[in-house]
């Protein structure tokens, strides 16, 4: 190896080291620490009781009906929000791509939900639906006294609407970026061959956008799976609307049961890892980071 490439290698490592350490500091070490905590009895309310308990915490979590309810809730919200977002995001992306006029206006307005703090969006939607302050119940066809947060189904509807509103812009922008990479000549050729607009969408747009769609789905699915802010503000998990992240928070921070809470944390980590591997496999060997 020449001196030049040796010094280039050293410089490269030196420049990357601070960022690498910064990223490992609050991920690799804490998840290792969470693993250690999860096999012990650690309850800050009873600091004197403790010790190694093996997989007891995991058994306790995996045999509780609360955990499985929360897993169901989280998966349910994730699947529904991401599906709606994909359809809606694709529609907005197509509209922006084929804009007759006002493309800038659409882009401006979809960026507004992106810029808003999630907690603020959650409050806005909550106040809109709350029976004592909201305008939604004053609309025609909706009962004046409907208590949206009083049962599981309607509470989830509002939670999902707020999530979709906040995160569809991100999806739409990613899909739009994918759309712009498609060669217009393909559509012209298909038109000459007599393909209908729907055929052109299914046979040209969708296949060519598969990588862009999968990347957008990967990021949004992982993000949706972590849902915390909106549920915390709207219901705090009441009416069986708790997500796994809320369960983890309740065990760790509210009940100070670090052992049990860490077992929940590790299980969430494993679930996220599983989702990520699934999508990366679906993407094939293509790295989503875009190596040139």
């Amino acid at each position, binding site marked *: 190896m020449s001196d030049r490439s040796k010094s280039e290698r050293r410089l490269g490592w030196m420049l*990357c080291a601070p960022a690498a350490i910064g990223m490992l500091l609050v991920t690799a070490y804490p998840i290792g620490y969470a693993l250690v905590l999860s096999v012990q009895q650690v309850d800050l309310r009873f600091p004197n009781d403790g010790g190694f308990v093996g997989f007891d915490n995991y058994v306790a979590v995996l045999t509780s009906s609360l955990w499985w309810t929360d897993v169901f809730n989280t998966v349910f919200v994730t699947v529904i929000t991401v599906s709606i977002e994909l359809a809606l995001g694709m529609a907005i992306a197509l509209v922006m791509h084929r804009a007759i006029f006002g493309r800038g206006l659409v882009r401006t307005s979809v960026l507004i939900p992106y810029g808003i703090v999630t907690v603020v969006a959650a409050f806005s939607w909550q106040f809109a639906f709350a029976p004592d302050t909201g305008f939604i119940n004053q609309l025609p066809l909706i009962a004046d006294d409907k208590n949206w947060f009083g049962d599981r189904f309607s509470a989830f509807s509002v939670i999902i609407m707020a999530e979709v509103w906040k995160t569809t812009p991100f999806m739409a922008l*990613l899909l739009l970026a994918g759309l712009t990479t498609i060669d217009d000549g393909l559509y012209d050729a298909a038109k000459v061959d007599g393909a209908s607009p729907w055929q052109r969408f299914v046979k040209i747009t969708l296949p060519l956008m598969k990588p862009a769609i999968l990347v957008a789905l990967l990021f949004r699915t992982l993000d949706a799976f972590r849902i915390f802010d909106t549920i915390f503000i709207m219901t705090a998990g009441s009416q069986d609307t708790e997500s796994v992240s809320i369960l983890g928070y309740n065990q760790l*921070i509210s009940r100070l049961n670090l052992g049990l809470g860490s077992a929940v944390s590790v299980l969430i980590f494993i679930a996220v890892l599983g989702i990520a591997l699934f999508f990366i496999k679906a993407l094939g060997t293509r790295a989503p980071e875009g190596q040139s």
Partner: protein
Amino acid sequence: MHHSARERTLWSIGLLIVLLFALIPVIWIISLSLKTPATVTDKSFIPTEFSLENYKGLFEGGINDSPFIRPLINSIVIAMITTFISIVLASLAAYAIARLRFPGRQLILAGALAVAMFPPISTVGPLFDMWRTLGLYDTYPGLIIPYLTFSLPLAIYTLVAFFREIPWDLEKAAQVDGATQFQAFRKVIVPLAAPGMFTAAILVFIFAWNDFLFAISLTSSDASRTVPAALAFFTGDSQFTQPTGNIAAAAVLVTIPIIIFVLIFQRRIVAGLTSGAVKG
């Protein structure tokens, strides 16, 4: 391309729906914040009486007793420090990845991707325990450190994408023309790199400004609580009044600056958000 009247009408309707969809929740929270305490529960979409009462309430009592001023300062300082450190570290790494050939470039990018997918809740328990031992619980660094970790991937990907587009040979050209290495860097490379760094900075700032999970888990008082967390702890003037109006006013105040920011720099933000993902 020619468009028929029917196409134009359909398009206008689509445009209107997208606009309403995006704007109604924002207009609603602004409207709520401008209602008087007596009419805040009148359920009308547009206030019947306008007042700034809710905003005044946020600032009453000055810095010590106001429920809003301290968290606002905390939010601003924490987000700015996070942004600054994150951009400095990410720029060094992105420069190396974009320009130098060394084994491990892919490792850094893959690591950043892994961190971007990492569930923050999995680190909250250990951090809570560690920060209490280290004295970082309820302090600025206690929030800045996790924000740094989770914003670095975003910053690195955005900056690598921008840095790859920079014609670095210009630096050499300037040196041939008689500029010193430092002059070449400052006059040629910095102006070319600045837009990318600025874009990454906006994205990181929005990320730190938005966080709620770490903010409620790792703080316990107004000493370091940021606005999103403080909003969750707002109480009414008495135990019988809901803080709806005050929450709405605070929500508007933390939202408006970001929206103005996003609108001014929308092209850059769109470029930044999509830079890493599309080239796949």
